[in-house]
């Protein structure tokens, strides 16, 4: 994922692919590569694809997964096995026929300042992986991760390889610091830090407290059930301070204040 290339901001397209590799990162988590037929689309961090098995109509819908990296014509993803569709994806052998719609969504814009803090709840790390390339440039990145704890060692190791200095927090204290990533973030952020968050809704809501620490810019990437991924079905609508928005095309990246700030609720 090369930020120097002009990001593709046109509408997504349906693409044929096949499973290239699939590696378990512990019990609940898979690192997957998908080989595309045809041209590899340009995408920016935070954009996502709807991924489904080609040729079957049950499971039916594509599962939204953030793009992690793209090497040649292989797109990489990272996902948690959380239900029927992801369990099935995790069980497929290499060569299995897939279908991808994307790249969808707005993705993260270039950071405004030069101090970027990435806060991830478990798989929320996915859209941030591609951002690591910034570190070699003017932007200084601090990554913060929260995991439940036991059973997540392999996943944490994988994240550490990508973000060598990543701050690890675990609920049970078995890996890294005992505590949650929001508290950890609050312990060091301040004016001049731009904060991006991705993870469970409760975590993202809590992240709002960085405003009190003087952080002005706080962006969050949201998750909502999706059908079309193209802004048509209104299945992913949320109420925001500026009216109804669709996570798939108006997001998934929003200003924290827009979605959690007002009385409108989400």
């Amino acid at each position, binding site marked *: 994922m090369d930020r120097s290339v002009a990001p593709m901001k*046109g*509408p*997504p*397209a*349906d693409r044929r692919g096949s499973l290239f590799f699939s590696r378990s990162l512990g019990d609940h988590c898979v690192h997957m590569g998908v080989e595309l037929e045809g041209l590899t689309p340009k995408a920016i961090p935070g954009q996502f694809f709807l991924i*489904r098995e080609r040729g079957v*109509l*049950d*499971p*039916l*819908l*594509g599962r939204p997964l953030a793009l992690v990296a793209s090497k040649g014509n292989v797109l990489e993803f990272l996902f948690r096995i959380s239900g029927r*569709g992801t369990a099935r994806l995790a069980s497929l052998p290499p060569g299995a026929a897939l*279908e991808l*719609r994307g790249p969808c969504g707005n993705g993260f814009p270039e950071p405004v300042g030069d101090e970027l803090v990435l806060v991830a709840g478990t798989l929320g790390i996915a859209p941030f992986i591609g951002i690591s390339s910034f570190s070699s440039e003017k932007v200084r990145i601090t990554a913060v991760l929260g995991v439940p704890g036991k059973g997540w060692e392999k996943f944490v190791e994988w994240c550490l390889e990508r973000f060598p200095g990543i701050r690890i927090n675990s609920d049970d204290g078995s890996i890294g610091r005992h505590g949650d990533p929001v508290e950890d973030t609050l312990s060091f952020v301040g004016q001049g830090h731009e904060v991006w968050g991705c993870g469970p809704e409760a975590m993202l809501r809590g992240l709002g407290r960085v405003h009190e620490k003087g952080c002005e810019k706080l962006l969050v990437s949201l998750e909502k*059930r*999706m*059908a*079309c*991924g*193209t*802004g*048509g*079905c*209104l*299945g*992913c*609508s949320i*109420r925001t301070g500026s009216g*109804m928005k669709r996570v798939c*095309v108006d997001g998934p990246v929003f200003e924290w204040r827009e979605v959690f700030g007002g009385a409108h609720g989400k």
Partner: protein
Amino acid sequence: MESSLRTNVGGVNLETPVIVASGVWPMDPRLWPAGSMEGVGAVCSKGMTFEPREGNRGFRIMETYAGILNSIGLQNYGVEHFIAKELPLLDNSCRPVIVNIAFETLEDLRRILERLKVCRSMVGVVEMNVSCPNVSRGGLSWGVHTESLGNAVSMARQVWEGPLWVKLSPQVPSMGEFARLSQECGAQAVVVGNTWLGMAIDNDLERPFFENVFAGLSGPAIFPLALRAVWEAAGAVNIPVIGCGGIARPGDALSMILAGASAVEVGTALFIDSGLPASICRELEANLTKKGLASVRELVGRARNDQGENGEKSR
């Protein structure tokens, strides 16, 4: 030479008999996935009400076996915004716009149609969604009682002079009867049909998954039911029938047409295959060539004939 897929259905000319169903594709053509509009003869707009609506809270979409349940709740910005912002965009797409409208009272219906008159030239067809609740009948859908359906269609016919289609609810005791009633009250075509009433339970929370308890089932799962409904309706009316429900592969659209549909609407399948309209057109063209026919109009209802292709009596 005229294109073999060109047709005229219920008052509107279509380059192809494949229509994007209401509520599934963005109103803003700039969001249409690359190539997805190839083969599309017309686009239905999202169900529009007189006042703006935020739609339902809670979950709105749930995957079922080869289908989805939806409970969007007619989220839309109301008729004024539609006319000012959305209709012009859709009109730019160079295809007839099928304006899908929903209403809770007859007064709403009248007001929407009056407003649409001001932009008559951009409205290809008014498609009445009669699956929405009739407030004066305790929220039962307009489309499931002959009296309320008759009143609504007759009123619309009086107010709206352009092409008028009625999109029937599958929750009717008899598809034939309700299609015939629509015809008698002035509909120029019937769309058969809308989503099928289903529901889901959240087993962990021990309550209905959707805020409104019931939700609409669409997608491949319902195709055999929708095909039957099309067969029944086409046997009961002289106006065109537009088949809608579960079309997932090109052959499904052909089946609908052979069963008596003059055109088809595709919805849920676009969520997984934006190239379906184009594939359907290729299938129809290949079928015409194989049979030496000149127009898709000649395919309509061919499976209803007593004689099979080989001259045998139908089974």
